[in-house]
């Protein structure tokens, strides 16, 4: 009989799902504020807004204003979901799978996985996933804290404000490429089991875990 291993808790799955929706809106509404190359997004918000509100104003202005409001609403929801999530996760910080593992294949394991299409010696996450996790934690914290400063800019000094603006920019510039990579490998057919584990809550076959993630398997067996 095939034994099963649960990869993610329902709360982790719920948080991941929420953060996808929120990040989608964060990026969608942040881009037209960041660069005029994305003003078409603002227009596509501004046109219906002007139509519904009956305002005879400037479409770009309404669009940017709607984007700024959605960005802040998304920020509120982000904090609403993230604070309890961090609390729950911190309670089991020693069980996180993103810490370095001495026996793991490391970066050379990425070649084994994605170029040779074999299974490297690794835990639940390979080196690339761990790096992505660090980037996400650092960048999202940067974005969240600097975002608060930018939101309540009247309460901070100009120097703090300039720093926050740069942190917000740098955080996003690092987050976006990492996110694209994360999305690519997440929806890649190679990761079908992992994708279903995250989105459908499907449990993993113990045999698969043993062959794909030997170090994780050892950990599970120990517990």
């Amino acid at each position: 009989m095939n034994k099963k291993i649960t990869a993610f808790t329902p709360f982790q799955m719920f948080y991941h799902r929420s953060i996808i929706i929120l990040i989608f809106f964060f990026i969608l509404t942040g881009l037209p504020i960041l660069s005029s190359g994305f003003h078409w997004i603002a227009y596509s918000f501004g046109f219906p807004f002007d139509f519904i509100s009956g305002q005879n104003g400037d479409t770009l202005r309404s669009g940017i204003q709607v984007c700024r409001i959605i960005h802040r609403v998304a920020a509120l929801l982000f904090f609403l979901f993230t604070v309890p999530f961090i609390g729950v996760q911190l309670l089991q910080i020693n069980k996180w799978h993103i810490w370095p593992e001495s026996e793991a294949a490391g970066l050379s394991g990425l070649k084994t996985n994605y170029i040779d299409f074999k299974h490297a010696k690794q835990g639940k996450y390979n080196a690339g996933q761990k790096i992505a996790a660090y980037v996400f934690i650092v960048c999202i914290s940067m974005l969240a804290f600097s975002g608060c400063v930018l939101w309540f800019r009247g309460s901070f000094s100009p120097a703090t404000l300039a720093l926050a603006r740069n942190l917000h920019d740098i955080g996003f510039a690092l987050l976006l490429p990492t996110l694209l990579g994360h999305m690519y490998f997440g929806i890649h057919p190679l990761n079908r089991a992992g994708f279903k584990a995250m989105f459908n809550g499907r449990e993993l076959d113990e045999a698969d875990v043993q062959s794909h993630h030997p170090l994780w398997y050892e950990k599970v067996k120990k517990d």
Partner: protein
Amino acid sequence: MSIYSMCYDSQACVRCFTCVVSCSVENRLRLQRNGTTSIETGVNKALPQLNYLYPIQREYGKYPKSYRITELHHCMHCENAPCASSCPSNAIERRKGGQVVIHQDLCVGCRTCQDACPFDVPIYDQHSNASYKCMMCYDRVESDLKPACVNSCIADALISGPREEVVAEARARAKRYSEQFGKEYIVYGADKINDYVGKAGWMTIVSAEEMEKYGLPKNPMVSSMVLRQTTKAFGLGASAAVALGAGAHFLYWLANRKDALAAQEKEADHE
């Protein structure tokens, strides 16, 4: 229309600040002219955001040798206008005559222009949720009138007109002052100041040694905004590289998929 420029002669100025008063008056009249508000409301309310021109006094040195320098604070109407290029809603326009103008009806009140300005010029008004600054009376200039401050100056310390004429007059004055007072006078903004701001549409005749004390930096720049441009370029480049890499990897996987699957099956059989 050629570039319209202004110049403030800090040596000829008698510090009567009639320009400051006439600027405020003109802006209140402009509210009525634009149909924004009645003249009564315009003159009854403080509306500090409408004072585009104001003196800032700084004291240098130790008493009794201390001295004061009064800066006439105003928008420089930069050639490269960092406020305009960083405005997310395109509310700031550089007109054909070179005047840099904030259109309040297009402004979203994000105050990015404040952050981008190395001279600390735009003023934010919470009530109207918009930023304000000197527009070099572009409406008057385009109707063949002088800007209000220039019109009211009693000492000919504010001059305006086509850029070439103003620059020529300013340089002649600076040369005369240099000879007369035995120290170098410059026309700030007649030549390119730096890449961040370019030339200034509103120049200042000031002695070279007092330039910085007067509030005219040698290298006016907001480093966080420069870093922002670099970060944007990096983010775009890195994202494009990841997207291309992902596409290439997917093609590579498609090409090798059958071999890889066969190898895996073999491995499974072997076990």
